[in-house]
């Protein structure tokens, strides 16, 4: 285990560049940054400033083109495919702007999915999913298909799914982008609660200022760098 003072996330000169033919586009550029465990980080910045790029690196969906990223003791920039999968399963949970639920699975099955992929037996997982869903106010929706849910309910399902493997970090990319302000506030409160009650590290990338009140750390990106 890492020592007390050691930050949960350490980025050293972290870069992700895209090459489009001849031209190079900067996603994030030489970021030096660290986040201690248990923080609620709000990442802000204009469109194209690199928020999604940073989150996809943290989520293990993408690999940096330069620098290092160490999360919870894993050197994400150097992990093998196999370990990267382990990392995505154990360490991070992801919430998307457009929910990304499996259209053919119902709420309960969607939530259980990451644990099933990790090889857990269904019955044990169900119990846990049940708890998460109840806590998020979804107890009457277990058998619904995503197409039968409202936007807020879909995002709450997605949050439950992000929690099922009990990750240390929850990442959310514009989680309220497709919601009205009332539902948006509910979702933000729920995410904040994960930080407050469970002591999880939560990182939210957003344009909106709904999250500002909950933030313990706020960073602003501009042209791929932290200002």
């Amino acid at each position, binding site marked *: 285990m890492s020592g007390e003072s050691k930050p949960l996330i350490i980025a050293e000169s972290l870069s992700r560049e895209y090459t489009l033919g001849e031209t190079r586009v900067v996603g994030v550029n030489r970021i030096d940054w660290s986040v201690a465990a248990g923080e609620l980080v709000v990442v802000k910045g204009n469109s194209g400033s690199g928020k*999604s790029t940073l989150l996809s690196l943290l989520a293990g969906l993408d690999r940096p083109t330069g620098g290092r990223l160490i999360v919870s003791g894993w050197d994400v920039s150097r992990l093998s495919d196999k370990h990267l*999968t382990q990392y*995505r399963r154990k360490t991070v949970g992801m919430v*998307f702007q457009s*929910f*990304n639920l499996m259209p053919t699975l119902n709420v309960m099955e969607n939530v259980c999915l990451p644990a099933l*992929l990790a*090889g857990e037996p269904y019955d044990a997982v169900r119990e846990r999913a049940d708890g998460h869903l109840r806590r998020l106010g979804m107890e009457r929706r277990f058998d619904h298909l*995503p197409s039968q849910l409202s936007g807020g309910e879909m995002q709450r399902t997605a949050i439950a799914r992000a929690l099922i*493997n009990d990750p240390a970090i929850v990442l959310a990319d514009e989680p309220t982008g497709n919601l009205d302000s009332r539902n948006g506030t509910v979702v933000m409160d729920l995410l904040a609660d994960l930080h407050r009650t469970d002591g999880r590290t939560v990182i939210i990338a957003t344009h909106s200022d709904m999250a500002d009140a909950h933030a313990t750390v706020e960073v602003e990106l501009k042209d791929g760098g932290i200002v």
Partner: protein
Amino acid sequence: MTHIGFFFRLFGWFILRPMGSAKGRTLTVLLGVALGAAVFTSVRLAVHASLEAFHRNMDAVVGRAEQTVLVPGGRVPESLVARLLSHRQVKAASPISTTYVRVAGSDTEPFLLLGFDPLLDRPLRHWRTTDAETPVSAWLDLIRHPGTFIAGSLLAERNGWKTGETTTLLHAGEPMTFRMVGVMAGGGLSAAEGGMVALCDIATFQEFTGWRGAVDRIDLILAPGETAAAVQALKKDLPKEVQIRPASRTRESGRMMIRAYQLNLSILSFASLFVGTFLVYSLVALNAASRRKETAILRSLGASPRMVFALFLVEGTALGLMGWLLAIPVSGLLLPFLLEGVSETVSTLFVRVSVPGFSLSAWEVLLSFTVTVAVAGAAAVQPSAEAMKVPPREVLAVIGRRGVPDRQTKRLTLAGLLMIAGVWPLARLPGPTGLALPGYAATMLLFIGFAMISPAVLRRLGRSVSIPLRRLAGTPAYLAGRYVKDSGTRTAVSVGALITAVALFVSLVIMIHSFRETVKLWVEQTVSGDLFVASRLAEVNDFRDPMTRDQIALLHSLSDEAEIVASRRFSLLYDGRVPYTLQAMAMDPFLRHGDFVWMRGDARASRPALVQGRGVVISEVFANRTGLSVGDRFRQPLQGTAVKLPVLGIIRDYRTQGGVVFFAFSALQAQLGDVRWTGARLYLRDSSGWTAAELRNALLERGGGSMDMVLGKDLRGEILRIFDETFAVTTVLLFIALAVAALGIATTLTILVLERYRELNTLYAVGGSSLQLRTMILWEALLIVSVGEAAGLVCGFLLSHILIFVINRQSFGWTFLYRVDWSALALSVPLVIAVALAAALPAFRAVFRQPPAAMLRER
């Protein structure tokens, strides 16, 4: 017009540009369409070439003749010519005899020798020679100099003959030396048999063949007036055994047979095109689905639903058009092979044709173009209509809708079941003779019915296997089961393509095997015998020429060593319309050594009656063509008398020129007096100690070289070889259909992956490994392929019944014993599954075509 211009600009932006960025997929689909279209086109062109050659030959030989005078099973006395010429109903009359002959001392193919009276024939047929000043001088040469002929250009060229040279020709009787007095040039008779023809004077012909005072037929041009009345009047003035028929009759029956064959091959080749259109459907459906958002945007910007519909429809049509263009070089590769295969099959099965090469028929090209483009366009209708329904407000929606409502699947299943139920009644409907239209319509219905019930089958399968699969094979297999359950009509289309291909495969394997097994049984029982002898060139000349008395005596001299079954054949028309062979055979020895393959009638009770000449047995083909059945009376005028005998049984027979009727040689003798044989088969006696080859050598030593002889073993082998060759074309078409289906599976699986890119990447994001994702795809493929294979097997077994008992009956008049080649089928199952899974490879590679992170950027 700016409207049209705008449409095509939009088409370029919206359809062509994305097509260009998905080249692999587009090319696969184009290749599938091209293969289908190429097979269809080249099969049609190949059969067309045979048909064309047949027509050209017929036109040349028939000329301007209107009616033909002949004696069924015999020859017309030459004396009738004078009577006809002086008849007031007759404007012109010309005696004609033809026979196939061969050049002595070489084994080149036989050619047609046509004997006629050049002067009397002038009004009927037209021909000239290359070097004669006037046609008249060439005619005079033939008449003035006995033993001369004028050769067709191809014949002269093949043999390297020069005018004035002599050559010896062989026929059933004595060989004769001819002198060539000219070569025919352009048009008319020179086109007969593709130029493999020679003309001689009727007197020369009679001297050569020994048929003095008789000719095959007399062609007539009637005096102006009503034909029916003229024919009636003529009939009254002619002897009873002589018949008058329209000169085009032979041409019609030949044409019908080739047409039926053309239809069969067209349908089989259309199957490839049909499977290819599944590809068009999948691609257009994918494009429509993946561009749903763009469609909604277009609609919100003011595009009418009709314009959206037209955009996707034109996409399908464009795929058809490009596929057809791509088919041109592919056809170029296929055509030479098909031309040869088809003309050989037509020659062995129906009528002799010699195809000099292929001629591009504008009509066939237009047909293949229209069919390809129309079928591709039709395949795009449903996805286009779906795209048209995208409401403009969907620009605002976050997630796209998917999944087919239960109700739709239920309706589809019901309709599919109804269709399958309607297959058999439809197949039994009466249709035009020789064309298996009801059978093919039933086949179509069967395919569509199975494609329609496949979503329900997938649903059931997905529902029942996903839970056990999770226990057995883990989460990826479970997810695959769930996906297959809910994929509904999307997968149904590719499953339908697979069902079609597998069903075709299974049913044709069963049919060909049943056919071959039945033919083998027939060959072993009915074509039994150790040695077959006949007069020279008997086979090509339809056994018209009896053996000489010397030859018959020679055979009798060996009767201590072998038992002889004499036979005499006549090529006749029953009721003046059904061509068949009447064969008198020494029944007693034949039935002791061999047997017929009885279908109907009491074989045991009928044999003695057959031996005693108290009845006939008729082949299935003959029964189907004439409607005669057991107990009915068979009637055939023959050389002035008539054969009138009850039908004792119906037997299987697979000789190809129409049906056959057998009766006792003794009965024929009783009717006609002394009868010469046209052939015989010999069974070695156990006491002789000879082999069949020794028997043949003994005959050869004693001067039997003037006969055609073939060992029974070789004859039976040859029949089976011809059988196998006939099905070579079919087998090739079959494999092409399978290949196209594999392309279809590849496209569909890839499409299923591509259109779920978001879901797959979400799975990755929430902790799925790439191995798990690939395993899931593999399971999906496996489930889809197994449903396709299983349904295809069931469909194939049903189809094999239709093929054997309906389509073959309707097209050729015969059926076979139902025999399943289990080993070939057992081999085919893993083969098809392996092919289909190999087709999953591109889908595998497509899984991470878009990096997972990209999904964070897509709204």
